[in-house]
């Protein structure tokens, strides 16, 4: 497990343990779409180079995003915190016939850790709308598996790559509070920069893993009432 991720989780746990004023801990679940431009180009190139006919059966589809965030209401309109999200998507170039099969799989997992800057836009009683401008980093793990099976012969290879990039995420969330509970929905756009892929030896390529795309979902958590 990456040490920085462990550090973030421990920080969140410590905050939960303190007697904070106007803090909240939310769990999020939603959907995310992904640009993955360079990776799609990789698939296109592969499709053209493979001597037999192939097809991209999966091409980095929109997937479920899970995560959470911890924030402190520092003023009436401003809230600051940290967030974490997990995204995973992939692609497959495939072909099969009577003589064998071919798979070229890319599975990318991304861990997003960032800072929440939230501003109150509207509130009425327990309902409020905030806009956020979140920033942070995205750590990605790329697993490429290639497998060829012909007649009685199987050839396979598996390599791992990684990348780290930064993101900027404008987002709007609407929440409703009831006692200690808080629930809401959010919608935003995730802008990813950097993220050049490097191999296990640390050698970087010009291709990047780009998680840019829409984010939307629901959130639910606990909210501490002012005393």
């Amino acid at each position, binding site marked *: *497990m990456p040490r920085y*991720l462990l550090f973030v*989780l*421990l920080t*969140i*746990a410590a905050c*939960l*343990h303190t007697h904070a004023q106007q803090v909240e801990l939310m769990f999020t679940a939603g959907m995310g779409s992904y640009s993955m431009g360079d990776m799609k180009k990789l698939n296109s190139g592969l499709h053209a180079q493979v*001597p*037999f*006919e*192939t*097809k991209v*059966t*999966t091409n980095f589809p929109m*997937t*479920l995003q*899970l995560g*959470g965030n911890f924030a402190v209401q520092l003023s009436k309109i401003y809230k600051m915190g940290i967030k974490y999200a*997990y995204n*995973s*998507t*992939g*692609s*497959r170039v*495939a*072909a*099969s*016939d*009577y*003589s*064998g*099969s*071919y798979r070229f*799989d890319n*599975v*990318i*997992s991304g861990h997003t850790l960032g800072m929440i800057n939230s501003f109150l836009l509207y509130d009425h009683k327990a309902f409020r709308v905030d806009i956020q401008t979140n920033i942070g980093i995205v750590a990605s793990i790329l697993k490429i598996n290639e497998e*060829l099976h*012909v*007649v009685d*012969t199987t050839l396979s290879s598996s390599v791992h790559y990684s990348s780290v990039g930064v993101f900027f995420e404008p987002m709007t969330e609407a929440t409703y509070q009831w006692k200690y509970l808080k629930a809401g929905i959010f919608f935003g756009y995730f802008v990813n920069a950097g993220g050049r892929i490097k191999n296990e030896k640390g050698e970087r390529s010009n291709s990047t893993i780009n998680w840019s795309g829409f984010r939307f979902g629901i959130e639910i958590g606990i909210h501490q009432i002012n005393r």
Partner: protein
Amino acid sequence: MRLHRFPILFFLFCFFILNSCEYKLKGDYFRNLNAIPPSNVLITISGHSDTLIATTNESYKVQVSCGDRITLFYRLYIDGVQKHFESVSSNTFYINPVTFTNMDGVYKMTVEAGINTGSGSIGDVLGTEGYLISKEFILVVLNGQGTFYPNQQFDRTNGTLKVILDVPSNIQNVKKVTFSKSVASSPYAVFATVHGTNHYEAIDASYVGESANFSVQTYLGDPAGTIFIHFVNGSTNVSYDLPEITAGVSNRGYPLLSWDKTHYTANCGSYRIYAKPNGSNMIELLGSVSNINDTMFEAAGATFPGNYLFHVAPVPIQVPSYYTDATAWTLFSREVYSVVGLNSFGFDRFLTPNGSFIYYTNSPDVIYEYSAETGTITNEINTSSGWFYTFAVSPNGKYLLAATGASDFSYLFYDLTTKQSTWILSSVVIGAGAHTGIISVADNGLSSVITGNKIVIYDFLHQVPITQQVLPMDADRTVISADGQYIFAEAGYLYLYKFVSGALQQKWSSSGSYGTIKYYTFYPSQPSEAKIFINQTFYTKNCDSWATVNSFALNISDLRNIDFTNGHILGSTTTYFMVFDANTGSLQFQNPTSPNLTTFDLRIKKNTVYHYGGKKLIIF
């Protein structure tokens, strides 16, 4: 303490849950393909049959014809043992079998090709599936051949031509030889195929001594001599060996050819005799002699007068297609030159009165009397006072009259029986200063003499002038009958006079539509009958009434002369001379004659036709 641990454990739990949520790929792209076996796959070696004869260490191009399929690899087996494997990506590749076996011999060579299925499947594209196609060849390895030029030798003994080829001992594996021949530009025709080792020979059964090109093709063969490949060839020309020809003249006067017997008695079936008239490019096949021991040929029917190049060509028993008249003339025969006709006398005047004598001249001052019975000159009448101008003989050979000059000359009146000569000055006969050579004399001494437009009748026997007659114009010719009673005079028209009461009385003239008169005379035995040839009809006319006594057609363009003694009329066309019966006009004989002679002249007497150039032909 427990409360403190819970959040940590909770987040760790969440973290692992998240990691277990890694995206699971799914989906496949299945193509429903089928491998179809190829049809009509053919493995060939370019430029070779299924029998590959390898004489050198060289590569051979293998072609796999399999439509749109691709050859992925091939294996080469020799006698069932794999000698080579190679991956390829083309339907054409090269093999070098001698690399694997260089011992002379015959082997079974198998080329096995792996071709793709063409289905487009993964296995097809990656070359891991396909069909195996094989083809078996016969490999004949013949190493160590040198080079040589096949030079043929010829043996002309025993009535045949034997062609011999000896292959040097350092040339191995020559197992077969074919011998062929070409004459002129004919295609080479194989006449023998011989199997052997070093010495080869064959007899050309069609050779009869011609000039020909002989070609020999050599073939390398496997040790058993059953499989062959063309090796080298060579050609050699063989020169003439043809019969020598000599030309003589037969008793009749036709060329008589004789030649040496052919040296190739086993092959020769006959001789052909060809002739080419001098000045002509046409080759005539005169005839053939089927008995090769008969080496003589009379060229009967040869053009008279004429001269020829004669060829005698041996003919093979089986006549080849190239044996044409042209090749027989140029390549199968020698030649000889010959003139048609027996040697005779030349002449510029030739008179044949009734009887057995011919009177002719070929010199200025001598008139010869020649016996047609003995073929000898029996008298020479010398006009020694000067060269004679012309002469005439009476119809029954009684007298000869010669004019010995053109002006102020003397006439020679000669009695052919007593051989007495009488000289009379022309001034006495026709007057001083007059001139003439147009004369005719009768058997009683009367003579018809033309001078200018005047006809003079003079009795040379008694040396008495008889009468004169003026003609409408200058005359060209005159003829007097044997009895001196009738006279033809040609002066524009032809006039017939009769001597009546010391004067000339005109009996007939040709003025009117009588056609073209080509010949006229009087019948020696019946002087009152005229013989006249008008157009192509020969008439016998009564001189008193000019009634037709007899007539018949003669298909000739010119009438040369009449031999009344033997009853023959000699006429001619442009291509033939013809002899007719003088009484009936039936054709008795004909022979080609030269159309090219510009001074053509023939005469007949007895059984012989004479040409003024000094040749004669005995026709009966």
